[in-house]
């Protein structure tokens, strides 16, 4: 199963990942539209991003969430009704929502952020 593996100990809070993610998917540098979120807690950085655990899949009322061949949890926006139950039920709070957006969004382990992280705190891994 493919997922974005994080090494928070390496993170220096550059937040390039947030910019890359929101640029890649929403053509904006607005970090609130990034599936990966970096937060400073007590002088250290925490990286919050979907670990592809799949607990959201049975929560969805319209079966809009499923795993693709690589094991990545994907949202089918055509089926999605924007109820956001997956957001409330995500055990790591990594399913995102934004008032500009009807549907939620999440990390699809595309890897775009990996190459932009100067500290090499991110990598695409298999579990």
């Amino acid at each position: 199963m493919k997922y974005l593996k994080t090494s928070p100990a390496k993170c220096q809070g550059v937040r390039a990942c947030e910019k890359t993610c929101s640029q890649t998917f929403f053509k904006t540098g607005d970090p609130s539209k990034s599936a990966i979120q970096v937060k400073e807690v007590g002088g250290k950085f925490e990286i919050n991003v979907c670990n592809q655990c799949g607990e959201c899949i049975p929560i969805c009322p319209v079966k809009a969430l499923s795993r693709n061949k690589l094991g990545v949890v994907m949202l089918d926006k055509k089926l999605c009704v924007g109820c956001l139950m997956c957001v409330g039920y995500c055990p790591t709070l990594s399913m995102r929502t934004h008032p500009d957006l009807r549907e939620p969004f999440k990390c699809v382990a595309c890897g775009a952020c990996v190459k932009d992280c100067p500290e090499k705190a991110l990598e695409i891994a298999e579990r």
Partner: protein
Amino acid sequence: MDENKVFEYTRYTQDIEAMKAAHQVLAEYAFTPSLPQKGYNNRSLHIDLGTLKFTEKKIDEAMKQTFTGGRGFGLKYLWDAIKPGTKWNDPENDIIISPGPICGITQYPGAGKSLVVTLSPITNIPIDSNVGGYFGPLLKFSGFDALEIQGKAKEDVIIVLDGVKGKVTIETAPQESLDSHIAAEQFTHQYAADEADLRNVSVVSSGAAAAHSLIGCLNFSYYDVRRKVTRLKQAGRGGIGTVFRDKKIKALVVHGPQVKGDMNHPADLGRIQRAGVKLHREMHDFDDKMCGMRKVGTTNIVGVMNSYDLLPVMNFQYGSHADAPKIDKTTWIKQFTQGIPDGCWYGCSMACAHGVDEFALRTGPYKGHKVVVDGPEYETAAGCGSNCGIFDPLWVIECNFYCDTYGIDTISFGTITGFIMECWQRGILNAERTGGLDMSWGKGESQLELMHQMARGEGFGLIAGQGVQRMKRIFADKGWGDFAFLTDIGLEGKGLEQSEYMSKESLAQQGGYYLTNKGPQHDEAWVIFMDMVNNQIPTFEDKAEALYYFPMFRTWFGLNGLCKLPWNDIEPGDNRTKNAPMDAAKVPEHVQNYVDLFSGVTGREITKEEIIKMSERVYQFQRVFDLRMGKGVRKYDQPPYRAMGPVTKEEYESRQERYDKQLKDWMNIDPSTKSTEEKIALHRKYREDRYQKLVEAVYKRRGWTADGVPTLETLKRNGIDFPEVVEVVAKHQ
């Protein structure tokens, strides 16, 4: 549950294309489909089945300000449709389905409700019923804030409203089933374009028993994408299904557009999303510790009621039973398929619409069929179970299924059957009088046969279907029993059967039931715990305040197309620590959520206080409506004594310690000097006097005269002093 599980049910779709080909279109109407803007389409659709005419009605700002939507619109349209002398089966009686401005949002639990209003056959006053399923939201997303149906068809018809094509048709449908589990499946498959479109179709139907009784219900369907079957939710109370069948409607079908998260075009989507995610997270964090709604739904309270001596047992004689654990949540968690998001509209993380899957029926025309049974809910488990002395969960499930598919209200049916069984116990009924049915306590098979008779329109089932109020008169007129005693033990008010809570030991709940607009249904006020268990409202004024605030607050759900359950069947984790007990009972943070939802959808900024004002306008209007139809005064607000205290020796003795202590504490009487009969009489005098004092306090708080009529000042304060409303109350001032 395994996401790929295939459910095995009996299917009814084999001949649906041939059936559809047999339809004959009697009338057709083209309209421009629209989506709501800020929660409203600002129009409704009126259909006259007698003349086959369609009329669009505009909804203006004044209508929205006064009546909000949902139940408010329903009552306003019904008021305009009927006259004081109208009977339920007159052609002008109107069935109104209205979803309300918030209805159809997908982000907050419990936001897909339709409100159905009609003149009730069982009470002869307006009834309102709150129901899930997808019909209301899809009606709204087709372009209408309400659907009104007046007149009577000459033969059985269906009404098909296609919100994609912009077309409404009235069609004959001679071959499809009347019974809802089949009708919903057949019509859903007939009017969906393909499998992916099945969830965009919803069917309203009743069933074979509705036409032979006064307690018919409506089923509102939705397509369950995991089970791949149509599910049913009920507008249960007050006989709306009976009116539906009297109009010769077999089904209403709506086909709407694919639902997305912003179809209401809300003023502030982000505000709604924030409230929704917060509530979803509370469900995630606390539901297992609080009510367990996602696992067992409303049945979580069967055990709670039993342990507090509040479960209706054997026609409300007793409040608990040793066998009650057989029908409590420990059973239902095994019967209900777990791990399915069982919401009756999108986004309901409370997910209480559970189902018993692949249930093999043991009786009736569908014996041997494997079906999904929607429920049981608490009311059904208590009413059709413990209240009838039935503690075999399989009979409760079977009864639930047939009530739904035949179009019968499980609450009325449970209270009716309990009454019949007590009449049997006391010799008022016997095998000769019931046509051979043994109606002893616990006879699940007899209960089902009574239901099948109701569906076939024969035997004792026809009498049972008349409801408790009429049965009391029938049994007394035949000389089978004493009318006064039958009145004491018949749990009905205004003609409506009481729902399934024991109010004997809670004065406030007696008011919560019998000081209601439509009859004793707990959706107005459920204050038993606050009153009896927690003793938070000790004085008459405290109780009156609760019987002002909660009915007004709860009315608001019905104005907006919302479910009550996510208000207080889940609470923020700090609700009880942050708030004083009486404030905690109001769940202030969730009330703020509702402010955010209403303002977020409509763009109209309201406050918590405005919620009560919005409701009170409609509540007072409904009270005047009752008066207009010949009720709505004090004499119709009286409970049967069984709802207030012990009628019989056995009841007294079952709680002797409690009642003897009350004699000492309340009346300063030494119980050892009195016989049980004398003690019963003393209690009765005390309890009946006490109820009248409550009535006076509540009337005062609600701004009513001593006879229960809203004063002119009350009408003015609520902005409903319209000439025709004033005219109704003027002669009672």
